[in-house]
Structure formats: C-alpha cells, structure tokens
C-alpha cells in the first residue's frame, strides 16, 4: 500500500500511509483508537475505496471494489467481533457464499471434505463439522473463522484484535497457529496482526508498524524496541509511568463478604475490601472472577452467605446496591455495560435519577452528568450525543463516569480496560489511582476499588492486594509485592494447588 489517503468529510482518517508485508511475515500494526488502523484495513479488504494512493498484491495493481472482491483476490479478515452465523453448522459457515454445488443442490460430500481440510490447516481436525457454531466456545469459533479464510484460499490474513476476548490458553493456541500459518515452510501467508497488547506484538511479530493520526510514525523490530518505546510512538509523548501509585492510606473495611455464594462455578467467597485500597482478582476467563463481582452487586442471585456494606447487611438487589454506595462496571460494554442508543448523559445518571431532580427532564439530566464526564475526560460533542457514536475508550469512560456521578464508595470494575487504546488506558489507570488515594478533590474520601482483569501487568501495576480465582474458588489475598506474573499464572492454572496437596 503506497501513499494511501482517505477523508471523511472534514476529518482526514488516513494521510498518506505506506505499508507492505511479505509472505511468511507477521506484521504488527499498532496505534491508538482513531489512529486509522480500521480504516486502513477496510481499504485493504475492499470495504472502502481510498481517495488517493495505490495498492498492489503480488506485484499487480489491486483495487477491490467490495469485500467479496477482496476475498476472491485472497485478502481475508478475522474480526474482533466474530462474523459467523451462530445458527449454522461449522461446515455451513466455512463454505458460506461459496458452496460447492452439484446441479441445483449443495454437494454435501465436497463440503465436508473442504471443511475437514480447512480445520486440519488450523490444527483443529477433531472439531465436528456438523456442530452448530453457537455451541462452540469462543476460542473454537475464532478458529472456524480462520479456517474459513483458509478454505477461501486467503494469502493475506488480517487479525483485528483477535485475543481481546480470549482466555490465556486460547490466546496461546492462537499464537502458535499464527506462527504456523506464516511459516514459509508451511502455508507461508502474509499476516497483519492488530493488537492493543504490546506484549503480544513483541512475542509474535517479525516487524511492527505504528500508526498515529493517519500516518505511519514508527517501524521497527519488536525484539529490539521496548514496550515503552512502542507506546511512546503510539501516543506521541513519553509514557514513563503507565501505572501511577500515589500514597494510599488503607482505611476501614467498607465491603465484607462472608461465604458469599452466587452462580456456579463460584464457590463461597470470603474477604474484606477497605477504603483506600485497590484489590485485584486474577484468574482465567470462566474461573468465576466475574461471578464474584456479579454476586457482590446482586446481579446474579445470592444463594447464600452475606454481603456487609459499611458494617450492615443490606438488601440483595442491584437497586439497593447503588443506593448503598456500591457501583459496578460490566466486562461486556456493548451488551450490558451501556445503553448504546441512549445519550451519554442518560447513561451516566441512570442508577440515581433521584440525584438529578424529582422530575428529571433531559436538560436537568445533561446538566447533572456534566461534571462526571468532564472529570473522566470523555471526548464528545455534547452529553446529548449517543454513546454508540463514541470510541471504545470513550465509552468506557462513560461507564466509569456513572460510578463517579453516583458517588459510590465501592467500585467493582470488571475488565475496565478491555479493548481500549493505550491513551485511554493510561487515563483510566491514573483516575483509579487518584480515587483510591482520595485525590483530586478535597474532602472526597478514598474509595475502595475491586478490579477483575485478565491482563496481569495491569493488576500488578495497579493493585495493593491480589487474589487468584481458580475453578470457582478464591485463593488467599496477598500483597502485590508477593506476586509476579508467573506465580499468578501458576495459581490461576491450578498448578500450585496440586503441588501443595
């Protein structure tokens, strides 16, 4: 791709980007949200046409007019949001739009053969081609999507944030596969890998390329560059301390669980959360971390045990929680965290409309939501804008602004930085730190914060104490100084447990 430009109205999305990738190479494409990665990849796939610049594929001019066109030329995308039809079977998905025919009918035997071959190519030949996609775990669905690209004869494969919703072991499996697909001795595909996780880029890619404000601003060998160098290139300034840690004073316990039992696989959990403390919950996806948070917020029914807030047992409903000073941010921003078709202001004030006024009209709501969105630094035209129009990072800030508006004492944050850009991440980290330390406002009491995260550097950088959840059981909380990535991972995979038994 040479000198590619694209404008949308007054905004220049791409301003002369050069990019090339060869067979057998894995190119890491990084950049903040809005840097132009998605636009660039849409042009490559044929979903958008560039205003200027040229594209070449195998030395020949390549100008796809539609995604179908691009796919036929051998360019395939594996999207962040999976694009499979959940009601169809694996094999039906694999050949969708390119079904082998015999006369007027689909050639079932040929379809099965193509499916088997493609599944073998992605190293998952044991998967039943007749299985419905909706029954597969997330990791397998992604493999099916990659297999579909293979079945269509892809030569260039683009991964857009493929691991943002995968558990660690699924992600590891994906890395192995990506390396295998790029291996010149094997398939020898050209691979473009977009990710927010710099560690992944360093582990996986042969070369990286940084986009900022629609331009290529850096390129290099990820084995030589440090994560800080890449991050600095992305945000355009020095990133010295991603995880600030102000002086925090641990105060009284505001939230206590006694043998709290919620939805399976959660087993009864007991611990105390104090003011001025950031408490981390680590563990594999599906181990029961989110279930602990959901049980605390009473989103899942509390089956037994007690939740004590500020020394008193309260009603176990989400409604009561918000009024007792407990707020939660969901890990699933789109389906649960935010009402995307409502305005920013509506989303922020929803749990505590009573704080707006007795008759909360839209003007009053917009006025009330102002300070919280301002403190979080939500970039928006006005608080009347629909949340769905914002970027991921800004959406997450709206979800956090809700807790600020409701002035809760206990913040339950489930994957608060999943799928958002480094700049927003840094801002959210510093906000969490300031809340826990009781700054910036005079007289604001330090908050108690519980964070669930799959991203270990984040937990280690931000938390005062961390506990690991494994198979529904919550381990003993220990000060962060006593943990490192290896020990967290060992306990999360249940390895230490087996040794001690």
């Amino acid at each position: 791709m040479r000198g590619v430009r694209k404008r949308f109205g007054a905004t220049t999305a791409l301003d002369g980007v050069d990019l090339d990738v060869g067979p057998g190479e894995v190119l890491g494409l990084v950049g903040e949200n809005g840097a132009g990665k998605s636009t660039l990849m849409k042009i490559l796939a044929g979903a958008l046409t560039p205003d200027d610049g040229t594209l070449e594929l195998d030395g020949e001019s390549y100008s796809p007019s539609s995604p179908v066109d691009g796919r036929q030329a051998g360019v395939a995308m594996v999207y962040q949001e999976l694009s499979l039809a959940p009601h169809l079977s694996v094999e039906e998905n694999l050949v969708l739009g390119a079904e082998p025919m015999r006369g007027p009918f689909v050639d079932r035997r040929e379809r099965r053969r193509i499916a088997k071959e493609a599944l073998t190519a992605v190293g998952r030949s044991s998967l039943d081609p007749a299985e419905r996609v909706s029954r597969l775990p997330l990791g397998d669905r992604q493999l099916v999507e990659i297999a579909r690209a293979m079945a269509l004869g892809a030569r260039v494969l683009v991964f857009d944030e493929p691991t943002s919703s995968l558990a660690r072991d699924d992600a590891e499996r994906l890395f192995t596969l990506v390396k295998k697909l790029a291996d010149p001795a094997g398939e020898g595909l050209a691979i473009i890998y977009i990710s927010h996780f710099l560690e992944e880029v360093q582990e996986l890619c042969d070369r990286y390329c940084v986009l900022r404000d629609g331009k290529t601003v850096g390129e290099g060998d990820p084995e030589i560059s440090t994560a800080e160098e890449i991050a600095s290139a992305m945000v355009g300034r020095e990133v010295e301390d991603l995880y600030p840690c102000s002086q925090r004073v641990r105060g009284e316990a505001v939230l206590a669980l006694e043998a709290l039992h919620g939805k399976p696989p959660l087993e009864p959990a007991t611990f105390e959360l104090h003011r001025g403390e950031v408490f981390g919950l680590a563990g594999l996806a599906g181990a029961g971390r989110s279930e602990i948070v959901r049980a605390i917020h009473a989103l899942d029914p509390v089956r037994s045990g007690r939740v004590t807030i500020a020394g008193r047992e309260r009603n176990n409903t989400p409604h009561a929680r918000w009024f007792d000073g407990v707020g939660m941010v969901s890990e699933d921003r789109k389906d649960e965290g935010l009402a995307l078709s409502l305005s920013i202001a509506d989303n922020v004030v929803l749990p505590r409309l009573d704080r707006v006024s007795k008759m909360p009209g839209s003007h009053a709501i917009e006025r009330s939501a102002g300070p919280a969105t301002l403190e979080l630094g939500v970039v928006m035209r006005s608080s009347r804008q629909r949340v769905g129009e914002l970027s991921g990072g800004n959406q997450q800030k709206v979800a956090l602004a809700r807790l600020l508006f409701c002035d809760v004492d206990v913040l339950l944050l489930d994957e608060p930085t999943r799928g958002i850009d480094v700049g927003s991440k840094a801002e959210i980290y510093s906000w969490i730190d300031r809340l826990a330390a009781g700054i910036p406002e005079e007289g604001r009491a330090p908050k108690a914060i519980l964070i669930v995260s799959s991203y270990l550097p984040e937990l280690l950088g931000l938390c005062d104490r961390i506990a690991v959840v494994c198979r529904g059981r919550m381990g003993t909380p220990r000060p962060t100084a006593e943990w490192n990535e290896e020990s967290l991972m060992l306990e999360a995979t249940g390895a230490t447990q087996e040794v001690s038994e």
Partner: protein
Amino acid sequence: MNPRVKRWLEELGPLFGLILVWSLFAALRPGEFATWENQRLMLLQTAVVGIAAVGATFIIVSGGIDLSVGSTIALGTVVIALLLEAGAPVTVAALGGVFVGVAVGFTLGSLVVGRVGSALGLFGAVAVSWVTWEQFGPLGALACGVAVAVAIALLGGRVFPRLPLAPFIVTLGAWGALRGMAKGLGDNQPVYPDELGWLGDVMFVGKSGLTSVLPPGVLLFLATALVAGVVLARTRFGRHVFAIGSNEETARLCGVRVERTKLLVYIVGVGCAGLAAILQFGYLSIGDPTTAEGYELRVIAAVVIGGASLTGGEGSIRGTLVGALIMTVVDNGCTKLGLDNWVQEVATGGIIVTAVALDRLRHRAS
C-alpha cells in the same frame, strides 16, 4: 447549523409531515377540509386510536409490542354494555371498561416478565367472581375472587416457574383470546343497553362550557396525552422505560427494577386501551365484540410514524399524537376529495414506510 435549531428540526420532523399533508388537502378542498367543524371531526376521529396509541408508546419504547389493542377495546365495550344492562351506575360501568384495560395489561405484563402465577391468579379471580355472581351477589363474588387470587399468589411463587415470554407471542395470543371472550360475553351478539347516561355524550359536542368547544372524549384524549407526555419524558419511571428499551441488561446493572417497571408499562399502556374502550362505546352506544378490528396495527403505525423504534429506546408522546393525526388527516382528506377507500389504504401504507425511511435518514445524517 446551530445545534439548538438542529435539535428542533430533528424533533419536529413528523410535525412537518403533518403540516404538509394538511396543507395539501386544505389547498385542494379549502371549503370542506379547512373548516373548524372538520378539524373538530378529525380530532374526534383520532381520539380512540390516539388514546390507545399514547399507551402503546410506553410499551413500544420499552421494547415491547401490543397486538391485542383492538380486542381489548372490543372486550371493554362489551363489559361496559353488560354492566349498564345489569343496572350498574354509569360511572361504575365506565370504570369497568378501564378495569378491563388494567386487568388485561396486568395479565400481559405478568406473562411478559414471566410471572405466570400472577397472570393465572387474576384470571382465576375474575373467572370465579363471574361464576359465583348469581349465587352470592356482587360482594360475595368479589370475596370469592379475592380469595382465589390470594391462594394462587401464595402458591404461585413455588409452583410456577419463572418463564418470560416474548411480548409479540403473548399479545398475539391475547389478540385472539380477548376477541373470543368478548364474543362469549356478548353471546356472539352486540349488547344494546337501554340507558347510556353520560356515556352517550362523550363523543358529542355539549351545550355549554368547555365541552361545547370539544367533545368530552377529545378532552379526555388530550388530557391523557398531556399527562403521559410528562410521565414519559420527565419522571424516573419514564426514563427507566427508555433505558429498558435501549438495553435491558444495562438497566438491570444500573439497579432499575426491570420486572416491576415492565409490568407497570403494560398496565399503563393497556389501561389506555381501556380508556379507548369508553370512547369507542360512546361512539357506538353499543357493546360490540367485533368492533375495533385492525386497530392494533393503526395504533402501532401511529407510534412508529411518530418516530418510535420498534426495537425500543426511542419514541415520544408528541410524535405519537402527530402520527395518529397524520393518518386521520389522510383518511378524512381523501374522503373530502371523493376518493375511494382503497386510495386511503394505499396512501396510509405508503406514509408508514416513508415516515420510517425518513426517520432512518435523519438518524444517519446526525
């Protein structure tokens, strides 16, 4: 453009449509269409569908749907007529119509949120009261009904599973069942009460006072719309309705009592159909089990033309009023032009699709 001006333009979109069609007919038939008498007639023609559409706006904004509006209205007129026939005071008979709406709303809402027990409890209570009426008299029947309701309510939680159902299915069932009940109650015949009392006057212009300007039915319609507009836009309940329609999971996370709010939405929404039944009865002066057929679709059309989304989270009472008026203006105007019925039907159909298409376009532009 000034954002304030732009916002007004956005919100007034359907109103421009109304002014456009109105001006068109006024220009073509000034002497017949653009008279005060005809404006009053059009308000009267809008009242029944309009008042039901005001209620349906709550349901649709919450992400639900009600396909049984027409059947509820028919059942309401029959119940009012039967009560009058049985010698009940006129006001009690009218309240009977409202009760039908509220009770149907409670039943539908209970089924939608999955409280099968509540729905059965109310149903059982009404059935038992009905059966025991002749033997024990009104009070005895009421006591029996309450006893049954309490019994089922006490048992309900344990016996019946929590089973939420899609509103489309629940109200599709009610569409048939309520019409059937109306026919059963009326013995397949319209019910002709002897004495109508003030119910006979609701759709006619009075001799003095406010009702000499607009019929009481139209005043009731406008007052209901006004109250509903304030409730939907400016109360916690109203904001919660929008939140549930936009994303139910988010609403739950944010501590909105989703089940309770939805139940209330159906009670309010179908309750308005009960009010519509009073107006329809006043209009017909009989209880007719076959009346108001197809009204459910006119009601939905009014709400949608007014800018509501069938997936929920969007809509306004103001828009619904405009939507209902647009349909009346087209019907009335076509009649004044001497066009056949089929032209009205085609025009209305075209307007529904055009309105939604324009709405999409406006959203994309903003």
